[in-house]
């Protein structure tokens, strides 16, 4: 009894098509992103670990070695328990440096093309047994169900199908750096199918084979040693060996590395995987023992590896047989697809590209990469098929898997060096790896190729082959690794990479090596990657670092260098990326790196999470002092000994308009004018202080004080931090205040002068007026006696001019006597009355007779003040308004109260006041009238009187129909007294 082959073939094809559609839907966005980017999906995708070995081989291993089969999964659980210490750092490194394979990671850490090449070659050989295991499992499972076709043909057909789907899943796109969402979802789907199939088989065993759990319990009870025999291997060396091998395989097998780190979309998903993935493995292995018991119970005449299939057939459940077969197919296909994809990355980056990229510019780099990957995938699967054909193995499926596990474990010493041992060197790593690989080949591969070559018989240790080979290979590897590392000196690149690896910080990997310009990097990339790819990569790096193509500053170029190396690493691997970016570079002295404050700051900030104890305290202090400098209200900058800006704080940025990003790293002469000249001259001058230095800023003159001091002396500080510190103090506002104060003083002086002049003029003026009066009297008498009347006219003129001089003196005295008015002499004054009084006085003059006065001031508003002075204010304003107005014009006086402030506006319809003189018209002696028409003191009097009354006067510059002067006074309160010194306007 069996299943028709075409039925199995059709089921397989349909299943793989469904799988492809799932992947395609995920890639195309038909499946919601929430379902794709999901910690559960991610954890299930790690289920690629469970291959045909789990599906079939676990039962076989349980039959021979009891519960030792579980160690293949307990070891993985241990690795995930230590996830925060092992997995997370690796993930951080992979994401930070775009490391797409384990060979990339080791090449990144140990450097050199040889590292990547050796790791890739060894992994290719080491994983071949594992691939052949999958082929064997699928073909033998088909043989169990349907013995119609020779297994070699079955294997070939299977390999061809897997090759097509592997290319479709992992090599469809032109962007090698992008995540394969579809692949992740497809693998998660396959993991779910595997689990479902095995659980259904387990339920079937308990309910159909044994009829019930109790019945199974009875069978176990009748077979006393059934369970005890399962625990017996716990006493053997195999138990510990399998735990160790599985622990290593959890993150060192290429497919596990790929799914765990390369395809990880969100680091937070790893936290869920720490426990969810081990839980998945537990559920997957739960049916294994019942299936083993069922096989023994049914006395199936097939290899224990295939009890699960034989059991379904013996009870006539063909549908279950097909389901179980699909589970096995799922397990095998997932492993082969992901492994071939992972190995293809390694082969591309470390074998093919280094050999092919030299000199000539490739025309279409991305397409070349894509087709290379497809061909490599096909070749890897073909090699697995070849291994399957060549090797004859009579032991169970698990043996093939364990050969690959021991191979993968050879990377453990190197990985310990990546994560924990800075002293490890490339020499030590390669010596250990090659030594361990040779022992592995001798003990495990050679006996498969040559039937008489069983070296283990020569070794007088009584243990299983797996324990022996694991011990020998790892001991050889570790010894050579340690000795080789201690006897060789790490290169500068290794030191930098080891620091980056251990602290998972974004270090500048090649900081001492930079180009002179961004264009040099572009040229170097064009030679290797081609024009199009070079420009794309340069654009990407410039966008990510916010730099321009014409960048020439060394610190910025180091940042660009590091970004380019990182980005290209995702394309061609870290080794090739480093050699491309470093072409034609100029090596700077190692101190250049320490002078690069941006890189230093980046390193410290990135490694802050790992700081502890005094280191953290020192870093806290550094950050505090940095913040103090940056928040100083004074502009502060420091200039290093080579003339470049080292520090540029926030105040400096505000003062100069030059951002910190632009200034830092620039030499002074490259700063925008006028700061390059200002700072350049000052740094070279002998003086340490410069006061009230005038500089043009934003089109206006600014006044700054400059101070400088030398920092660092060769005797007690690192020369890299020597230079000068410059402080810049903006005193523009201070100078303005000084000017205003001087102006006020000048006004006060003029007042004092006016008083003195008035007194000096007043006395002789009185004498002249008396004499003139007598002349007029005498002239009057002479006129009666028909004497000369001209004398009388001249005397009258003298009197008129004296009267005029008198009015000027009176104004001067009034102006100078303002200081004597105090608040105690203020009374409540009805402002409407003052306005009306002023209007009456002004109407007396001939000039104002044709002018109409429109007064609308509230009649009940009182202010505290001197009534006569207030009348004087309105008289002066109305006189000016009359002088400016044309005949028959209307002068409007309006008043309103708001928030205890009385506002009175005097509006005329004259020509208005030129805005250019609006600030000067309140100054004494300033007048726009012709000589003799005005004293120039009227508005200055208004200004002074208003100040004394706690008010203000201003020109309304928005008024377009003439001149509008606005007076503001506080409304009188019975308890208020305006101060003698009015508040400034």
């Amino acid at each position, binding site marked *: 009894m069996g299943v028709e082959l075409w039925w199995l073939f059709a089921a397989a094809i349909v299943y793989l098509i469904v799988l492809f559609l799932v992947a395609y839907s995920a890639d195309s966005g038909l499946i919601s992103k929430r379902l794709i980017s999901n910690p559960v999906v991610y954890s299930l995708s790690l289920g690629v670990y469970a291959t045909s070995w789990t599906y079939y081989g676990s039962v076989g291993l349980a039959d021979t070695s009891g*519960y030792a089969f*579980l*160690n293949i999964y*307990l070891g993985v*659980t*241990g690795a*995930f*328990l*230590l*996830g*925060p*210490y092992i997995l*997370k*750092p690796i993930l*951080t490194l992979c994401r930070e440096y775009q490391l797409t394979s384990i060979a990339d990671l080791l090449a990144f850490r140990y450097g050199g093309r040889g590292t990547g090449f050796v790791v890739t070659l060894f992994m290719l050989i080491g994983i071949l047994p594992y691939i052949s295991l999958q082929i064997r499992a699928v073909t033998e499972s088909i043989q169990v169900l349907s013995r119609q076709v020779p297994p070699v043909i079955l294997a070939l057909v299977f390999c061809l199908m897997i090759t097509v789907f592997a290319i479709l899943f992992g090599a469809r796109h032109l962007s090698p750096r992008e995540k394969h969402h579809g692949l992740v979802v497809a693998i998660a789907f396959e993991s779910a199918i595997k689990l479902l199939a095995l659980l259904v088989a387990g339920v079937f065993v308990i309910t159909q084979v044994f009829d019930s759990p109790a019945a199974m319990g009875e069978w*176990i009870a009748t077979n006393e040693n*059934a*369970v*005890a025999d*399962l*625990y*017996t291997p*716990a*006493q053997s060396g195999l*138990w*510990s060996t399998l*735990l160790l091998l599985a622990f290593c395989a959890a993150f060192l097998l290429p497919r596990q590395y790929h799914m765990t780190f390369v395809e990880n979309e969100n*680091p*937070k998903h*790893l*936290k869920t995987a*720490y*426990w*969810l993935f*081990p*839980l998945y493995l*537990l559920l997957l*292995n*739960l049916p294994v*023992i019942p299936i083993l018991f069922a096989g023994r119970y049914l006395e199936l005449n097939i290899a224990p590896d295939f009890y699960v299939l034989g059991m379904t057939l013996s009870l006539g459940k063909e549908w279950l047989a097909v389901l179980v077969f699909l589970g096995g197919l799922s397990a095998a296909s997932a492993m082969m697809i992901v492994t071939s994809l992972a190995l293809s990355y390694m082969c591309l980056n470390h074998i093919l590209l280094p050999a092919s990229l030299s000199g000539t510019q490739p025309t279409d780099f991305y397409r070349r990469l894509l087709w290379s990957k497809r061909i490599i995938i096909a070749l890897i699967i073909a090699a697995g098929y070849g291994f399957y054909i060549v090797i004859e193995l009579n032991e169970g499926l698990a043996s093939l898997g364990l050969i690959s596990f021991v191979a993968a474990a050879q990377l453990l010493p190197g990985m310990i060096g990546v994560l924990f041992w800075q002293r490890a060197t490339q020499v030590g790593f390669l010596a250990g790896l090659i030594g361990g690989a040779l022992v592995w080949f001798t003990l495990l591969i050679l006996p498969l190729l040559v039937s008489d070559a069983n070296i283990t018989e020569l070794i007088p240790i009584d243990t299983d082959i797996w324990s022996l080979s694991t011990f020998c290979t790892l001991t050889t590897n570790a010894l050579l690794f340690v000795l080789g590392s201690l006897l060789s000196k790490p290169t500068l690149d290794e030191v930098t990479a080891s620091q980056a690896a251990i602290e998972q910080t974004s270090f500048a990997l090649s900081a001492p090596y930079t180009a002179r310009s961004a264009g040099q990097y572009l040229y170097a990339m064009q030679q290797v990657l081609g024009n199009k790819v070079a420009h794309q990569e340069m654009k990407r790096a410039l966008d990510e670092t916010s730099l321009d193509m014409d960048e020439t500053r060394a610190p910025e170029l180091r940042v660009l260098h590091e970004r380019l190396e990182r980005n290209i690493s995702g394309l061609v691997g870290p080794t090739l990326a480093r050699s491309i970016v470093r072409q034609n570079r100029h090596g700077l002295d190692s101190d250049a790196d320490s002078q690069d404050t941006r890189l230093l700051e980046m390193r410290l900030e990135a490694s802050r*999470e*790992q700081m502890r104890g005094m280191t953290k305290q020192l870093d806290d202090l550094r950050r505090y002092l940095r913040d103090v400098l940056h928040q100083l209200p004074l502009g502060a900058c420091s200039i290093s000994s080579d003339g470049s800006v080292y520090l540029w704080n926030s105040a400096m940025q505000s003062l100069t308009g030059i951002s910190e990003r632009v200034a830092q790293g620039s030499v002074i002469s490259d700063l925008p004018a006028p700061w390059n000249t200002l700072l350049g001259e000052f740094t070279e001058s002998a003086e340490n202080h410069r006061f009230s230095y005038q500089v043009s800023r934003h089109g206006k003159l600014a006044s700054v004080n400059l101070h400088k001091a030398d920092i660092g002396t060769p005797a007690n500080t690192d020369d890299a931090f020597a230079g000068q510190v410059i402080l810049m103090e903006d005193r523009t506002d201070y100078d303005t205040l000084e000017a205003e104060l001087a102006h006020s003083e000048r006004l006060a002086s003029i007042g004092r002068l006016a008083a003195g002049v008035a007194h000096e003029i007043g006395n002789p003026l009185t004498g002249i007026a008396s004499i003139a009066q007598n002349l007029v009297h005498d002239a009057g008498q002479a006129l009666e006696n028909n004497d000369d009347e001209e004398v009388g006219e001249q005397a009258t003129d003298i009197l008129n001019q004296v009267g005029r001089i008198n009015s000027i003196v009176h104004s001067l005295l009034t102006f100078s006597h303002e200081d004597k008015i105090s608040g105690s002499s203020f009374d409540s004054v009805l402002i409407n009355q003052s306005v009306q009084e002023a209007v009456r006085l002004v109407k007396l003059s001939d000039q104002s007779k044709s002018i109409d006065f429109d007064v609308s001031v509230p009649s009940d508003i009182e202010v505290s003040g001197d009534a006569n002075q207030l009348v004087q204010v309105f008289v002066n304003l109305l006189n000016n308004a009359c002088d400016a107005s044309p005949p028959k014009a209307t002068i409007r006086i309006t008043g309103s109260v708001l928030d205890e402030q009385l506002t009175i506006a005097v509006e005329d319809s004259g020509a208005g006041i030129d805005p250019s003189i609006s600030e000067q018209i309140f100054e004494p002696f300033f007048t726009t009238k012709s000589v003799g028409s005005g004293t120039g003191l009227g508005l200055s009097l208004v200004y002074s009187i208003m100040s004394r009354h706690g008010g203000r006067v201003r020109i309304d510059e928005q008024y377009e129909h003439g001149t509008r002067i606005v007076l503001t006074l506080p409304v009188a309160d019975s308890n208020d007294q305006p101060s003698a010194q009015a508040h400034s306007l």
Partner: protein
Amino acid sequence: MSDKTRHDHTLLIFFAAVFVFNSPLTNWWSLIGLPWYAIFVVWALFILIAAVNLTRDTNDGR
């Protein structure tokens, strides 16, 4: 409880698992007549303890 303490718990859980699954203690299982699924129960227990400890982390990593 600080993050460092939680991370130290991770190490404790790991070493406890090593002690249970890879030490002379493992031999006792076959002597005291445990059912066939006992090892799965112990395994599940460690997964549960690890899940509780790790999901309480606010800062995953060292």
